[in-house]
């Protein structure tokens, strides 16, 4: 047993990215780090001059940073939540994709939280939230739920990593000490495995409500105010749906890249993509349902202050973005995914996913800015145009996220080796068991 646990055998391909790094990786990383450094310069500028260097104004007090905050936190639902659900459902096809998804969560959460720091007028005083917390503030709820989520997701990423780290410990020379420490003395004994599986299962259960709570609370940052088109009971589920939506799209993109770059075609098959694609399609419809419900309710209520925001989105100043959002979140993904010819292809799913990311970013933007631009007491028509500092910081966050993701793949297998193997070895019989248990007319094994 031990020998097989620690050797890699058929899955050597999964270790190759760790063992061998091409010049392309370095080149690409340099570009990403360059963008990041540029962003840090922009940040330096902002710290020196204050938020004066942004395009924000009265009354558009929030802009790109908060948009990105919501967007990133949304993406973070990719990993943990989706992987947890799939795990709990025993969806066997999940095995090669969970890791790629979970990493997104952990990394992107930092950037989400980072966006809030960027947005602060006084980042040096951020600890005041802990020193003088006001527990009635949804932002404090956010701080709590995001920290818990971050902790949970990190554990949830780490636990299934342990056997793989042990494999790395036993099969590679580099970073030996790191792997030894992180492997926590994993030997793959049956009792260890049992504990690990139990822990993973517990975490999977725990992490789902946390994840749901996170984006609910993010939505409440808006929903708990009385501002037009923010103050809505639908916001919690709406945001969660949007988060899962953009999260799935993020997984699809990440998978496609990893597959291509590390030649993981045997692991990440078109079926994985089209399965996720189906999920994405379901979410697109759900998202549309929520959006439609939200807008229709607003329209019928026709409260003037809400209508001002409504019409600025649907027919006014923000109409181009709004209709692009509808196209990219609904029309394009449906077009590609509902069509068998494209929906079953990797590229088809990726196109849909990219489109959804664009659309969901716009959706976040359109939640933040139009409501602020149309306060109940009208003000002079000052438009918000993000400044170079804001765009630079956004680019640097995306770049650095991609960079860190790449770095992760250089340290740890992006497809879970042991889970794939476990699937290969045990899943078939387990599935047969399950099917027998749930369907009549089959001989039942292992009755309890």
């Amino acid at each position, binding site marked *: 047993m031990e020998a097989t646990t620690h050797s890699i055998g058929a899955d050597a391909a999964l270790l190759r990215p760790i063992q061998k790094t091409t010049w392309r990786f370095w080149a690409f990383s340099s570009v990403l780090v360059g963008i990041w450094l540029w962003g840090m310069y922009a940040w330096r500028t902002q710290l020196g*001059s*204050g*938020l*004066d260097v942004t395009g*924000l*104004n*009265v*009354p*558009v*007090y*929030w802009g790109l940073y908060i948009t990105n905050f919501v967007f990133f936190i949304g993406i973070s639902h990719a990993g943990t939540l989706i992987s947890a659900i799939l795990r709990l459902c025993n969806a066997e096809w999940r095995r090669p994709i969970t890791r790629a998804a979970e990493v997104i969560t952990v990394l992107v959460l930092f950037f989400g939280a980072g966006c*809030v720091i960027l*947005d*602060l*007028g*006084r*980042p040096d*005083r*951020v600890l*005041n*939230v802990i*020193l*003088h*917390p*006001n527990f*009635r*503030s*949804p*932002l*404090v709820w956010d*701080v709590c739920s995001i920290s818990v989520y971050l902790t949970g997701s990190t554990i949830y990423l780490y636990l299934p990593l342990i056997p793989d780290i042990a494999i790395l410990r036993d099969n590679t020379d580099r970073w030996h000490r790191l792997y030894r420490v992180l492997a926590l003395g994993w030997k793959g004994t049956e009792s260890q495995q049992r504990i690990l599986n139990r822990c993973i299962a517990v975490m999977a259960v725990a992490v789902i409500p946390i994840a749901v709570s996170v984006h609910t609370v993010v939505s409440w*940052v808006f929903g*708990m*105010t*009385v*501002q037009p088109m923010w103050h809505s009971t639908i916001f919690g589920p709406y945001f969660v749906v949007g988060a899962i939506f953009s999260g799935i799209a993020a997984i699809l993109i990440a998978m496609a890249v990893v597959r291509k770059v590390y030649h993981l075609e045997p692991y990440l098959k078109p079926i994985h993509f089209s399965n996720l694609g189906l999920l994405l399609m379901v979410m697109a419809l759900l998202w549309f349902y929520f959006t439609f419900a939200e807008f229709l309710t607003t329209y019928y209520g026709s409260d*003037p202050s809400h209508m001002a925001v409504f019409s600025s989105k649907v027919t006014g100043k923000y109409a181009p973005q709004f209709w692009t959002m509808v196209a990219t979140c609904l029309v394009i993904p449906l077009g590609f995914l509902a069509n068998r010819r494209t929906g079953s292809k990797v590229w088809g799913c990726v196109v849909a996913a990219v489109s959804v990311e664009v659309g969901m970013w716009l959706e976040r933007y359109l939640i933040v800015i139009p409501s*602020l631009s149309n*306060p*109940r*007491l*009208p*003000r*002079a028509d*000052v438009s918000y145009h993000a400044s170079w500092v804001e765009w630079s910081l956004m680019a640097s966050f995306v770049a650095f996220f991609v960079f860190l993701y790449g770095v992760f793949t250089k340290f740890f297998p992006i497809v879970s080796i042991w889970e794939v193997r476990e699937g290969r070895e045990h899943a078939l019989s387990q599935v047969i068991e399950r099917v027998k248990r749930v369907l009549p007319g089959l001989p039942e094994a292992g009755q309890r």
Partner: protein
Amino acid sequence: MARWGMVIDLDRCTACQACVVACKVENNIPPTGADVAGRGRSISWMRLARNVSEHGEGAAPQWIPLPCMHCENPPCVKVCPATATMIDKEGLVAQVYPRCIGCRYCTTACPYTVRYFNWKKYDWPFPMEQSLNPDVSIRPKGVVEKCTFCHHRLQLAKDRARAESRLLAEGDYVPACVQTCPSGAMVFGDLDDRRSEVSRLAESPRAFRLMEELGTKPKVIYLSKGE
């Protein structure tokens, strides 16, 4: 305990904006310029809200002096993560500058849009700093500020009353905007004191509060035009 409140009689108000300027001078608002204005960044704790009526052509515009409402159920206070804005013991919605982290959640949550942010460090070109009011702190970069109901004047009035060993009387504590209003449109005082002019005016059939339906319970009460 007094419940400080303000009445603004729109039938007297001439939209002269003396209140706007008085507030700026009293509360050390920096002089800026076309550039800051063009970017929509001006700070004006008191401003004239312009509500061009949507019904029909030529309908008279409405101009309403708009300070902080010092809501009794203030949406801004609820959302502040760092307790940097709160209802102080005098019932005023106060702002603790050294604590504010500048998240601007309060500014987005206030339905009256009367909160302002310090986008940068502002300067008073020499010798304009001479006219700074020593009773009001200068706000650093990155924090939010708003109308305080001139609470420093309450402090001074109390000190004065104590020095004269008497109780605070009506008219001892008057904010800068109220003091200057040429048409006498603004009145300030204790809404709970039955004998005060504010409480009498607040009972007027012309009295209304802005966006009453939001449940913010403003302590600024308007009197509508007309008989």
